[in-house]
């Protein structure tokens, strides 16, 4: 008869327990395999995401989509009928800037066609959904006291967003001539932003960064820094709420979930 020490019994016992646990975790004989974790109720069908690639065409299609976002926003602003009286001149500026964006969109789509891609001829769906539609809803709220001013605030933010986007894609585009074309348009957008910044905070005091002494917040500046920033853009628009505040939206340049991939269409 074999004799085991107390230590050997404990050791073998431990190995046995571990074996049982591992067996329970592994495949079971005669048990059908399932791709789903066992759950109560019907399991959702598996959705396969398309394989996408961030290439020059996708980046240019995204840039084109932002141009159409801007065109649509200026058209919406002009359609509000708010550019009257003291804001009449702003209406003329809005038309000029919108037309510039039409030219940019045409130029970008021309580059896309040369590269064998499909031009993008509508606003970026994601940008529209998360930024522009909510902003326009706030601006057109019946209790908003100054929709004309808010429209200029939104347009200024979109121009900065466009300038940042073109600046940002310079390092992502593989073709040097496309980088040059992109920043050539980006500098146009920066000029647009200056014109609108001066409409919001006119004169010499609105050129360089400054702080509102009453609120402690940064004023709108035509030239906000020594280098073009790539930072989120804060937009405060809409009616004053019960607590005295107004809604702020944070705009960021298009990301992987908002690029105009080949699978994204305007239809």
């Amino acid at each position, binding site marked *: 008869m074999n004799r085991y020490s107390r230590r050997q019994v404990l050791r073998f016992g431990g190995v046995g327990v571990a074996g049982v646990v591992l067996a329970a975790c592994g495949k079971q004989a005669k048990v059908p395999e399932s791709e789903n974790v066992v759950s109560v109720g019907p399991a959702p069908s598996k959705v396969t995401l398309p394989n996408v690639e961030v290439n020059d065409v996708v980046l240019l299609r995204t840039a084109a989509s932002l141009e159409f976002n801007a065109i649509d926003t200026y058209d919406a602003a002009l359609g509000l009928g708010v550019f009257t009286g003291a804001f009449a001149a702003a209406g003329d500026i809005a038309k000029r800037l919108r037309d510039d964006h039409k030219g940019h969109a045409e130029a970008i789509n021309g580059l896309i066609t040369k590269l064998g891609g499909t031009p993008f001829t509508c606003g970026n769906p994601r940008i529209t959904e998360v930024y522009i539609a909510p902003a326009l809803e706030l601006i057109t709220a019946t209790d908003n006291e100054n929709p004309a001013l808010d429209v200029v605030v939104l347009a200024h933010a979109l121009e900065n967003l466009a300038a940042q986007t073109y600046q940002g894609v310079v390092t992502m585009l593989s073709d040097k001539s496309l*980088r040059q074309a992109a920043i050539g348009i980006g*500098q146009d957008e920066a000029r647009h932003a200056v014109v609108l910044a001066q409409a919001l905070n006119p004169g010499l005091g609105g050129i360089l960064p400054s702080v509102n002494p009453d609120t402690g917040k940064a004023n709108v500046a035509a*030239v906000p820094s020594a280098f073009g920033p790539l930072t989120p853009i804060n937009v405060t628009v809409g009616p004053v709420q019960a607590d005295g505040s107004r809604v702020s939206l944070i705009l960021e340049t298009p990301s992987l979930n908002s690029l105009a991939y080949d699978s994204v269409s305007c239809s």
Partner: protein
Amino acid sequence: MMNPSATTPPSTADVALLAFGNGAELAARDLYAVAAGLSAFSDEEQAVLVGFHDHHRAAAQALAGLVGSDAPNVREDAVYNAFRSRLEGTDKSAIYDALRELENTLVATHTTLVGTLDGTAGSALIASVITTQARHAAVLALVAGRALNDALVNSATALTPGAN
């Protein structure tokens, strides 16, 4: 925000181009120093000119940092001499126009550089300088009381590195 992409360092050819940019920015810095010292401008106007002077100095320093020990850190005299004579007198609008032409020339030059540079570290830096200097140009058109088109359009010709 887009995912940051890895940048590539300047190539040997890039170093010469970025060094030219360094010298051109120092020329702009010195031209703004001249303009800001003119008695024609008020304190508030001088503050703006000094601000733009500082932006050009920052651009020159950033370019020098990228180029390293090969950075000339000396102003490009051809650029300085092309504009210096226009920064005199009491006609503020004329001086603003000269500075706007300087800014537009730098924007055109830098834009050409972006289409030439191999390394994206240089392209990224130059791109961030371009958007700021385009803003300078637009501001200068507005403070000079020029038409909207003058603020929005750049018809300047790019400088050619090594041409002078």
